[in-house]
């Protein structure tokens, strides 16, 4: 029912998510947080994931890492199905995948020293030699631009939001992972610090040869770091395509709306007064057919009767819409 075509990016993707469904039971109702999402990320690629809050971005990121088990669907990481893994096999695999959160301060244990926080993943994964641990911790901290000697003995509250995000990135890097889900890593940061962290992520990516799933609700931020962008609405993908192409020629009405809504730092660009009306409906009872139809200026009968499938509209660009813009 919720099958979507899977836009292939390469013959050997590092991550291959196939028809993923994630739900949350609340009372006797069900939140349809992710409803049949398929996507692939090539080795060394950054895939940006955008959409309004509540559309299921974090749920998707967490389900990819098996921090929330999906109801159905598969997550192939380097060819192996994570959804079928349990116990030690899953723990071993988790060394290769990491997560960075939006709220850097809240994601650090306030009572533990920075050195211990970063060493913890090493201990869990069985690095017993403490000298080796310290060396790895120092390397990770230096890599994110912090001086280990000044940092390891201190507590999280002694650091600003931007520094805490550096610490979180160091913690994610210490196990030398291949893949990182960055869940809105700069949304809570000021413009100037945001730029520092985005640059740092880019630098770490090339230094460690990382593959990233970069989640944000800000399209301009996503574009700055992503090779391709996936646009999500109410648990489903609307559009996937190469960043520049998607911005230059969005095919989905929702993508166009998101681009329109970006505040432009240019006084000659009078903000369009055509912007989006209303807010997304509840994922407990999503609209029939196309989930965007209650806000879409192009919606017609077909949009409520028939769910649009992802299909190619241009080279590498896929859209789920009955009446695309291109």
């Amino acid at each position, binding site marked *: 029912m919720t099958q979507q075509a899977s836009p292939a990016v390469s013959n050997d993707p590092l991550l291959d998510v196939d028809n993923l469904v994630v739900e949350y039971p609340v009372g006797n109702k069900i939140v349809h947080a992710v409803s049949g999402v398929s996507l692939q990320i090539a080795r060394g690629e950054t895939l940006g994931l955008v959409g*309004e*809050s509540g559309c299921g971005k974090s749920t998707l990121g967490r389900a990819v890492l098996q921090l929330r088990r999906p109801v159905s669907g598969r997550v192939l990481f380097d060819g192996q199905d994570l959804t079928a893994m349990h116990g030690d096999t899953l723990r071993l695999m988790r060394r290769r995948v990491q997560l960075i959160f939006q709220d850097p301060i809240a994601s650090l244990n306030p009572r533990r020293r920075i050195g211990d926080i970063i060493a913890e993943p090493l201990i869990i994964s069985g690095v017993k030699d403490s000298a080796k641990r310290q060396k790895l911790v120092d390397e990770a901290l230096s890599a994110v631009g912090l001086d280990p000697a000044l940092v390891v003995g201190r507590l999280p509250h002694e650091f*600003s939001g*931007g520094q805490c995000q550096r610490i979180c990135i160091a913690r994610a890097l210490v196990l030398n992972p291949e893949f990182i889900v960055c869940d809105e890593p700069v949304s809570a940061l*000021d*413009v*100037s*610090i*945001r*730029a*520092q962290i*985005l*640059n740092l992520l*880019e630098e770490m990516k090339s230094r460690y040869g990382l593959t990233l799933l970069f989640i944000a*609700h*800000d*399209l*301009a*931020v996503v*574009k*700055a*770091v*992503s*090779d391709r962008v996936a646009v999500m609405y109410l648990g489903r993908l609307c559009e996937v395509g190469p*960043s*520049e192409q998607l*911005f230059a020629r969005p095919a989905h009405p929702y993508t166009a*709306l*998101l*681009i*329109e*809504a*970006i*505040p*432009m*730092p*240019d*006084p*000659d*660009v*009078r*903000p369009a*007064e055509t*912007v*989006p*009306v*209303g*807010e997304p409906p509840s994922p407990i009872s999503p609209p029939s057919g196309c989930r965007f139809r209650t806000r879409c200026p192009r919606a017609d009968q077909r949009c409520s009767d028939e769910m649009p499938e992802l299909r190619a509209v241009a080279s590498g660009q896929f859209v789920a819409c009955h009446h695309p813009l291109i």
Partner: protein
Amino acid sequence: MTEGTLLSVEDVIVDLPTPRGNLRAVDRVDLTIGAGRTLGVVGESGCGKTMLSRAILQLLPKRAKLSGRVMFDGQDLLQLSPEKLRKLRGRSLAVVFQDPMTSLNPVLTIGTQLIETLQEHLELDMAAATRRSVELLAAVGIPAPEQRLMQYPHQLSGGMRQRVAIAIALSCEPKLLIADEPTTALDVTIQAQILDLLAREQRRRHMAMILITHDLGVVAGRTDEVAVMYAGRVVERAPTPALFKKMRMPYTEALLAALPKIDAAPHTPLPAISGRPPDPTRPLKGCSFSPRCRYAWAQCHVEKPRLEESNSPAHQFACFRPIGTGAGAGA
């Protein structure tokens, strides 16, 4: 105060006692805003935007020390009795905060809150106040307003709550609305709708507005004038088009450069501002931006630049080496 000036903030200082010593949150700020005009106040978090707006509203923390003068609509706010201030804040001086729950009562319905405000300040009877409430909710884009009157704030989304807070702020036809990061916590799509709403109501009511934000993109198309704040001070101030056409203060330039550009290719490194703002309990002797400024020279570290005009009286900046001068940074 000159003719047509609605608000003038003169040499305002806000000091806050902290365990680490005195924290000067607002440092000698001068601002004016004319009736029906919009002023954007932009700066990174912690630079004193909220303390400045609270100083205008006379809603500072108890221990705060305020000096200077705040003239609003011909009255010196520092001399008004608490009772008079309360009346003023309900009527001609209104505010919308980043978190709408700051101004909403969680245990009262939306209707009760709106109707009570209208009854108290405009002395409307119940029927008239109810009618007006429905009109206001419709004006701020809330669907099915009659039904919303019966709902509690927690039953609404963040964007809808902010709309209700705006409706309450607008209810008594204020002369000045202070909007303190009204959209920072919201999605871009909702942000665009709320900003449009504020702009529309501002024009329709010929109301003056101070729009506070950390995002230069938010003020660009929506204000007449912009004041950029850094470490408690106004460091550049200009008519909005002039500011974007020719920024003079290196901090303003850096703030703009650090924004991801929609038309830049992916993976273009962002010109980030290194370091972070100074600790406000340890004020610097020289220019507050000097540790982060790529144009700083010796004088910047020992002397504080004053906010001054150069060619155009409307464009002021606090910098020894302004961008675009022969000796300056842009040379």
